[in-house]
């Protein structure tokens, strides 16, 4: 009877997400909206990192591609809903082009290639003023008007983002439960065996990266109408690292990890405000400590607590023996 409990918890959280912002100040609603947006970006990167086991340091530049595409198109009078798919496809294709050569070679090449790519995108955004407005960025993008439902108010835009996030999460749930999800898991546990059973490791990893990148694009497409002002500085390498750490802090490879990680990274600066400039020092220090003791992230801590307080299922006699074998 595990599944109903989990479903119940999710519904409860969803209800909380709907009720909490009611009657709150705009600032809190803004923080919650950016939590949702970063959760989407982190969810995508989780597919790349947690499921396919590849480091991408370009999630911020995929956010940039999504953000600038929707910004340029909505400024030119197109509807956000038309701009969005174009941004997503662009991210997906760029992901394929970037990942293909990097994943041909064993190792952490994708990390280096995406690192280089993020810097490259930053330079392009800064230097190609005719298109991107250079360091001044782009501003005045309209928020999407969905006919019956205008998103001009902060609260209604929050609900709009929540709706998009729920759809994105459901799609991700579908992916990790599909045969692909099984292939990812197999890849993580024993890549050689997976390959010998017909899993095309390279292709699966590449597609995971491309889909993860498209999630970055989706997050970026939501940033544009949220802040209505975008500039290259918001999509630098530091931001890619930020998203990466969200995934790791929440728990790479777990479905709900990214939401927790994003919450921590968004909320921690508020909590640690009294430490002023030392916030990032404390945060990165904590991340290292966490990686030493609980590499599976905050979700891992939860798992450990649960195991401690809940009686174990009856162990079969030969289980300890089986577990000891390599």
């Amino acid at each position, binding site marked *: 009877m595990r599944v109903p409990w989990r479903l119940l918890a999710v519904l409860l959280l969803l209800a909380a997400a709907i009720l909490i912002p009611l009657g709150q100040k705009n600032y809190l609603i803004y923080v919650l909206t950016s939590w949702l947006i970063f959760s989407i970006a982190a969810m995508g990167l989780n597919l790349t990192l947690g499921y396919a086991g590849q480091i991408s340091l370009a999630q911020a530049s995929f956010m940039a591609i999504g953000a600038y595409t929707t910004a340029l198109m909505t400024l030119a009078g197109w509807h956000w809903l038309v701009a969005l798919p174009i941004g997503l496809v662009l991210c997906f294709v760029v992901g394929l082009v970037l990942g293909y050569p990097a994943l041909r070679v064993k190792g952490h090449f994708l990390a280096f290639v995406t690192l280089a790519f993020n810097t490259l995108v930053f330079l392009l955004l800064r230097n190609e003023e005719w298109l991107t407005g250079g360091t001044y960025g782009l501003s005045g993008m309209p928020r999407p008007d969905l006919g019956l439902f205008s998103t001009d108010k902060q609260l209604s835009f929050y609900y709009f983002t929540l709706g998009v996030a729920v759809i994105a999460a459901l799609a991700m749930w579908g992916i990790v439960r599909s*045969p692909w999800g099984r292939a990812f898991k197999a890849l993580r546990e024993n890549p050689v065996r997976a390959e010998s*059973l017909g899993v095309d490791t390279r292709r699966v990893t590449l597609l995971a990266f491309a889909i993860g990148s498209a999630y970055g694009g989706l997050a970026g497409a939501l940033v544009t109408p949220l802040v209505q002002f975008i500039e290259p500085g918001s999509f630098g390498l530091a931001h890619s690292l930020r998203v990466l750490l969200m995934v790791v802090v929440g728990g790479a490879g777990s479905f709900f990890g990214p939401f927790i990680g994003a919450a921590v990274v968004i909320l921690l600066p508020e909590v640690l405000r009294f430490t002023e400039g030392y916030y990032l020092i404390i945060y990165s220090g904590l991340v290292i400590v966490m990686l030493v003791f609980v590499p599976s992230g905050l979700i891992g801590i939860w798992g450990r607590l649960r195991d401690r307080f809940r009686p174990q299922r009856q162990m079969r006699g030969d289980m300890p023996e*089986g577990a000891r074998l390599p």
Partner: protein
Amino acid sequence: MTGPVLSVRNIEKSFGGIRAVRGVSFDVRKGEVLGLIGPNGSGKSTLFNCILGQLLPDAGEVSVNGRPVSGLRASHLNRLGVGRTFQQLSVFPKMTVLDNIILAGQEHHGTMLSRLFGAPDAGLTQEAERMIAFFRLNHLRDELAGSLSYGQQKLVDAAMAFMAGPSLVLLDEPAGGVNLTMLSHFKDRLAAYNAEHGTTFVVIEHNMEFVMSLCTRIIVLAEGAIIAEGTPEEIRSNPTVIDAYLGG
């Protein structure tokens, strides 16, 4: 009459100055259970890896169902109908037995896209359950594969190799480390599978008794070349083979 399932032609492989395999050729027909035996260093592992595409032979050709396969990636070879088991334990420890076995079949069903949007089990649950029942693992269906005993994991490994309905299965030291009771069950299941489906096996094995009772034909390698070939009875009484094993 169809051609051989596996055809090995003049395979040569050297490491540095040492010729590990010296022009070995043989064919394996449909439904045969071929044993590859030989003392340590006889080149059987090298040959095995050449057949599996893990090693590229210096010369010669390996074909499966008439198709040359040298240098193919493992996943590609598998999709051409070649299954294999591993010498070391090779299950996915944190997946259930059922998931292990479904995984082994899913890449052979549908397209990349249908595997993304289709049913989570790729429609393979029933087939996987039949495979589990065949190996008498029913009670372990929902256990994590890593929690099984060594012998049980070997059975899961074999079940995975068969799941995609391969025409050829390469078994790498299947008997190694398995206790006697489990071993006779294992052998019985392999033989039954061969009888039911007519799948061709190539077995590398040290355990003589296991090879002699399972295989229909045996090839003996020594110093990279075939020194004897025949039915288990012929091999058992072949003086060259006895020399190779005793005299070295």
